[in-house]
């Protein structure tokens, strides 16, 4: 390999590190002060890119020159900063005290809303921005041509780091921000109005996200997928650097930029795998990242199923519901049965997540990983081993369980937001593998021809098979929740030190819960693959994970039947509303935000609470 090639690769790595740092720096600052992991940070980045790609060409009509270009970039970032202010005042301010699961979901609601709004405002097509005036000609480095704009980007990272450093060290605002990062209550006790501080921080964070996005326009066309891809990368950077640490983010971005640049030489298909390995190694050695500190969170942040006595009437109700569901094919047409089958599948998927979140207090944000592994396991069995359905379904379940065991082994060492980020990253990696390993997984097209066995084909038969499998799995999981194992999980959720003090091996319990939950999700995924006849990478994507979380939230996290009801309601809503509007995501996003803000107990929880209050 020529040295000049290595130099150019390294420079490429530095340029992407700079872009990544500018965006991730905003995320980490916002987290440091508000303790909210802002999922919508990637959306702010996307708005920055779209705004700049529209605004800069318009400005260049009036006066063509570098000054106009850079002024347009800064103006776009300012616009995004103001959007951040609105976001803080309208939403974030109301959820600072909420459990982190709700914060993540509410900000993801914003992601959905922005996705639809961006298409409405800027149109569905990608927008490529103009190249920077004065920086069009490439420069020659060691005999190779290198885009001069990339050199500017390489400089931009350290410049932003320097300015942020000055702001944090040399201004009163910065000193207050750093103090608030450490102890918000004490800052308030000294007479500092946190509302202003938080709004200011959101402005700064959103400005940086917008700047990160705006700087991309000469390199990448603004597109509707950039929000989720950049947020996943930013999460990795902030987690590796230590959440809340600006220098940590810089260092992590540098390492990841180089890893990506040279990872291509080792894993030509998936550079994300290398990045994931880095994150796993760093978190295994330092569970709070390179420069992070242990979370100082008072009390428990977990919300979950409260203590409950299984009532004998519950069993009777379950039998009746089951019998009614079994009779459904007598009255329903094929379409309704198809919808009902999907509802049952997602009910199992959401219920498996309930074991982790509601019972274990383990906020898994990447549950799609196991659903997708189950689906892909079954499909790969059919595709490559020519396995019959009877073997392919268990294969999918097994693959999901093994995946859960591996991911879980890393994840149970972590807590809170780091855990959520790690599970999310794991799911994103699997997504990337499914997407990029075309020879085996079929890439974007996925695998088709995943049809059930003869005896189970046909809408009615497959519905009954799904009902049988879902009901069995739910009963097993319910038994687990009410067994001593479930009690141990709840004890660990409510107070880790006390659970440890009475001799519970928390990590082992959580690990087992991960495997169980993963296996159940994998079963759901496998059934889903056969019901559709195909699998594709979207089964592993963030929206699938969020679907399960939304079902949980909608039904009620503090109830056992909540996820089942939530799956039914969400799916029915989607089935009814999606054909009517092109703004389904806007609707879903606003609904998620509304649930978090207005009735966080969910449907079943609200009904239960209302019944309790009346008696």
């Amino acid at each position, binding site marked *: 390999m020529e040295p000049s090639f290595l130099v150019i690769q390294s420079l490429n790595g530095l340029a992407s590190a700079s872009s990544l740092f500018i965006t991730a720096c905003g995320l980490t600052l916002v987290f440091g002060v508000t303790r909210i992991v802002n999922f919508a940070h990637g959306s702010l980045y996307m708005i920055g890119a779209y705004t700049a790609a529209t605004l800069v060409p318009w400005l260049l009509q009036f006066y063509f020159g570098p000054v106009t270009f850079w002024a347009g970039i800064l103006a776009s970032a300012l616009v995004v900063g103001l959007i951040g202010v609105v976001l803080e005042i309208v939403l974030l301010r109301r959820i600072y005290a909420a459990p982190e699961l709700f914060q993540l979901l509410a900000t993801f609601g914003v992601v959905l809303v922005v996705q639809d709004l961006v298409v409405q405002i800027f149109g569905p097509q990608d927008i490529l921005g103009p190249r920077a005036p004065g920086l069009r000609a490439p420069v020659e480095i060691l005999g190779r041509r290198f885009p001069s704009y990339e050199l500017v980007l390489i400089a931009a990272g350290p410049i932003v780091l320097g300015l942020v450093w000055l702001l944090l060290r040399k201004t009163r605002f910065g000193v207050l921000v*750093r*103090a608030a990062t*450490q*102890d918000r*209550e*004490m800052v*308030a*006790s000294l*007479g*500092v109005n946190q509302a202003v501080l938080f709004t200011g921080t959101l402005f700064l964070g959103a400005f940086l996200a917008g700047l990160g996005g705006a700087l991309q326009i000469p390199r990448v066309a603004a597109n509707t997928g950039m929000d989720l891809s950049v947020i996943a990368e930013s999460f990795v950077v902030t987690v590796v650097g230590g959440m809340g640490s600006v220098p940590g983010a810089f260092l992590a971005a540098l390492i990841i930029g180089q890893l990506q640049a040279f990872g291509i030489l080792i894993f030509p298909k998936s550079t994300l795998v290398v990045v994931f390995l880095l994150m796993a190694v760093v978190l295994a050695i330092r569970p709070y990242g390179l420069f992070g500190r242990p979370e100082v969170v008072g009390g428990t942040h977990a919300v979950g199923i409260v203590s409950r006595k299984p009532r004998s009437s519950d069993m009777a109700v379950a039998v009746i519901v089951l019998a009614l569901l079994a009779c459904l094919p007598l009255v329903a047409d094929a379409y309704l049965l198809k919808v009902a089958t999907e509802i049952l599948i997602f009910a199992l998927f959401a219920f498996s997540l309930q074991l982790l979140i509601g019972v274990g207090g383990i906020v898994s944000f990447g549950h799609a990983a196991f659903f997708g592994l189950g689906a892909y396991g079954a499909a790969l069995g059919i595709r490559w081993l020519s396995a019959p359905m009877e073997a392919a379904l268990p294969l999918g379940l097994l693959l999901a369980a093994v995946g859960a065991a591996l991911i879980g082994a890393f994840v149970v060492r972590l807590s809170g937001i780091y855990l959520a980020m790690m599970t999310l990253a794991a799911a994103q990696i699997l997504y990337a593998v499914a997407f990029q390993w075309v020879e085996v997984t079929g890439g974007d097209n996925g695998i088709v021809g995943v049809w059930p066995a003869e005896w189970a084909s046909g809408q009615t038969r497959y519905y009954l098979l799904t009902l049988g499998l879902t009901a069995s799995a739910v009963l097993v999981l319910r038994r687990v929740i009410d067994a001593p194992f479930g009690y141990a999980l709840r004890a660990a959720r409510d107070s880790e030190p006390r659970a440890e003090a009475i001799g519970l091996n928390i990590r082992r319990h959580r690990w087992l819960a991960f495997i169980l939950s993963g296996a159940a999700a994998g079963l759901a995924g496998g059934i889903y693959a056969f019901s559709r006849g195909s699998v594709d990478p979207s089964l592993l994507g963030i929206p699938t994970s969020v679907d399960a979380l939304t079902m949980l939230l909608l039904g009620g996290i503090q109830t056992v039947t909540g996820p089942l009801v939530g799956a039914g309601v969400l799916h029915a809503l989607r089935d009814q509303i999606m054909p009517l509007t092109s703004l389904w995501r806007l609707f879903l996003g606003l609904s998620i935000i509304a649930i978090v803000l207005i009735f966080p107990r969910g449907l079943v929880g609200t009904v239960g609470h209302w019944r309790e209050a009346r008696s």
Partner: protein
Amino acid sequence: MTAPLLDVVNLSAAYGRARVLFGLSLHLDPGEVVALVGRNGAGKTTTLKAIMGLVPATAERLAFKGRPILNLSTYRIARLGLGYVPEDRRIFTDLTVEENLEVGRREARGGLSPWTPERLFRLFPNLAEMRGRRGNQMSGGEQQMLSIARTLMGNPEAILLDEPSEGIAPVIVQTMAEAIRAMKAEGVAVLLSEQNWAFAAGISDRACVIERGEIRFQGPMRDLMADAALRAETLGV
């Protein structure tokens, strides 16, 4: 009789379902030092936190300088001129001594001469030698001095001081006592929560004895000093 600077009538507070304060009343006049004494768990810290709006509380009356402060957000209470020095000091460990002071800085109110870092460094000479040092490189006693100095930077008219003598070297306890006298001399009123009886007795004008969330005794310090039986029963000294 003039209105008290801080007036607390029938204050109750709870952590979730566990009630800690049961209708407690006390008051603080301008420029006086009042010791809130009582056993561990009697509710001293909760009283101060409830006044600052840091734990949910109810009260018949909770007023500072005649203004009701119940349900007011903590930062507004602090801005009225009520300072708070928490028991665990809560120094910003990533910040230097000077930066810690900067967080506490607020404009002076009429009447009192403003506190500056220079004046505070004269009051706590130890701090003057470590202006650029970070909070995590300071001893417990130094952190305690910094915590008090930081609150004084807000130019408060009254300070709620939670266990300033806890866990620090005896020689520094002496510095604390001098500092409290200096504050009093400047006209700053102090409500002092203390377990160290000798320390509290040495610097306070009045005493409130708190037991299980209620006030058992309220009166001049010398009366409490004379009443050995009450002290033995409520304080164990």
